[in-house]
């Protein structure tokens, strides 16, 4: 369930005018920006953006880039984008910046969105960057992780209900063999994870658990820690139980290196209209701290950014 709170009616023209007023003059009324933008759903934001363009002949995102800065600017701009455009931008950024967890972003996009959403993202990516997502993923990666990531973004999974239990059992056995032999680069595991439908894969994961008493992810470990294996585990988690995967991203956001702001912001922004409620609940169950408290206690430096995230979580800002 979504956590986003929106008013029943809103006027895109009034919203555009309010935002313009908030940006006028030397300062910026961030509170006003949040009170509107963090309380509009995808359809409303689209109309608002168009109204702003019609009234002031300027793209709202470009305007905001001049008014706010830092993490607040980043979060706000991503939030205002349409989901397909947003995911394309996240993917592009991940590939260009090549941060240590760039592959998680690609896998999230490839595995937690529906087949049609992934298609829209790829179209948006081609429109924005004049390349296909597949070709950019391929040319920015090498070896095993390239094969996995390219397969994941190229796939157009069947989304119907038809599954084959015997195939699930045989493929669970194939994966088991791979784990036993530590033959993790075997193409079969990429084939299965990237081409089978999500429902089929869930039956496979269950079959594995029934047959071998353990989960696949537990078997996919090697030392030293391996980026490719982590990517495979991420893929399985995203397919099996996306909300728990996202809760895990949030849980891992606080570590020795500091706070993974990008991860927190990305999960909240991309799931606020989807399933952030379940993610929040799972987070609380594991941490005994609400996500709101975590944000309040750890992201206090940038008050506007904090309030923006809290607003998306359903708080009154």
């Amino acid at each position, binding site marked *: 369930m979504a956590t986003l709170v929106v008013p029943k009616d809103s006027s895109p023209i009034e919203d555009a005018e309010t935002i313009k007023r908030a940006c006028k003059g030397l300062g910026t009324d961030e509170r006003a920006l949040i009170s509107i933008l963090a309380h509009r759903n995808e359809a409303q934001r689209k109309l608002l953006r168009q109204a702003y363009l019609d009234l002031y002949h300027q793209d709202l995102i470009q305007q905001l880039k001049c008014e706010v800065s830092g993490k607040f600017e980043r979060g706000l701009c991503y939030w205002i984008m349409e989901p397909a455009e947003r995911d394309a931008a996240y993917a592009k950024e991940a590939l260009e910046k090549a941060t240590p967890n760039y592959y998680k972003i690609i896998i999230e996009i490839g595995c937690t969105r529906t087949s049609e959403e992934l*298609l829209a993202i*790829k179209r948006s990516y*081609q429109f924005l960057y*004049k*390349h*296909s997502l*597949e*070709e950019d993923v*391929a*040319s920015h990666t*090498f*070896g095993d992780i*390239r*094969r996995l990531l*390219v*397969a994941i973004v*190229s*796939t*157009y*999974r*069947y*989304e*119907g209900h*038809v599954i084959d239990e015997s*195939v699930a059992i045989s493929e669970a056995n194939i994966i088991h063999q791979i784990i036993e032999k530590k033959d993790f680069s075997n*193409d079969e595991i990429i*084939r299965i994870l*990237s*081409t*089978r*439908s999500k429902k089929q894969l869930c039956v496979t994961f269950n079959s594995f658990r029934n047959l071998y008493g353990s989960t696949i992810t537990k078997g996919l470990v090697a030392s030293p820690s391996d980026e490719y294996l982590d990517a495979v585990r991420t893929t399985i988690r995203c397919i099996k139980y996306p909300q728990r995967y996202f809760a895990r991203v949030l849980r891992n956001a606080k570590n020795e290196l500091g706070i993974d702001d990008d991860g927190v912001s990305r999960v909240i922004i991309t799931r606020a209209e989807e399933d952030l409620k379940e993610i929040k609940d799972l987070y609380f169950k594991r941490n005994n701290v609400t996500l709101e408290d975590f944000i309040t206690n750890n992201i206090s430096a940038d008050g506007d950014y904090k309030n923006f995230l809290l607003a998306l979580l359903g708080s009154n800002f």
Partner: protein
Amino acid sequence: MELNQELEAVPQALSGHGVEESALVTILGKWDPLEREAFRKKTPNLFIEDKERHFQRWDDHYARLLKHEFVRFKNTVMLWSMHPWERDARLVKEAIKKGKASYGVLVEIACTRSSEELLGARKAYHSLFDHSIEEDVASHIHGIERKFLVALVSAYRYEGAKIKNEHAKSEAKIIFDVIKNAHKKPINEDDEVIRILATRSKPHLKALYNHYKDISGKNLDEDLDDIRFKEAVQCLCTPQIYFCKVLDSALKIDVDKNTKKALGRVIVTRADIDIKEIMADYNNLYGVTLPHKIQDIAKGNYKDFLLNLIARGSN
């Protein structure tokens, strides 16, 4: 017509692509038992003389082949009437089922269709078979060509004209080096070549093709030994020439049934797209027009149907 001429006409009606229905109706249909016996005795490739029991029986093998010829018109009609997405989805399904000899069809569909046409085929495949194309290709093909074929059918290429020439040039060099070392490492195992051929846009690959010729002196598809890579490059960079070659192989009397099917497949699938260009290239390459060749080799309703498809397509 004299009986001798008739005895030539009926076997003629039964050899080639399709059958000459009118000859069978008017000639075979009027023969009495003696005439039919003369026919059976005079066509040893259709009928086997049982000398011990004094009768002639159909050659089983030829009878099986004839079954395909009778149904060729029906199959072409069905293929033509289908939505292009269903058509391509069914062609892919059939190619997967038939095995290695038909993998060229997978390459053809994956590489000659536009991004949206291939996507449509993938949608139709979901609807028809409750699986995705990539899942079936991946799970039914086990050989070394699997990686490449799965990558090709999964492609959703950028279709804009914008290309980066330096990349096309450097990637042509990469492929050139891989081909040079093919004796040490087979091209099927080279991730870079697969990456380039399966993900780059067609305009990019056409530029790459030209750069390759500058480096090597020969065309890329000529230098590639692996048949699937060769076909992919031809389909991606010079599709009309590729189709001419397929048609030329198909337009022979004694070819295997997969090759024969290519005639109907190519004409049906290209009649609305680029049959005009294909015909022009065919004429240039072989010195004879496509309709002329079809007139020689095909028979009956099947022949008339194909000629009609070409004629409307080239108007």
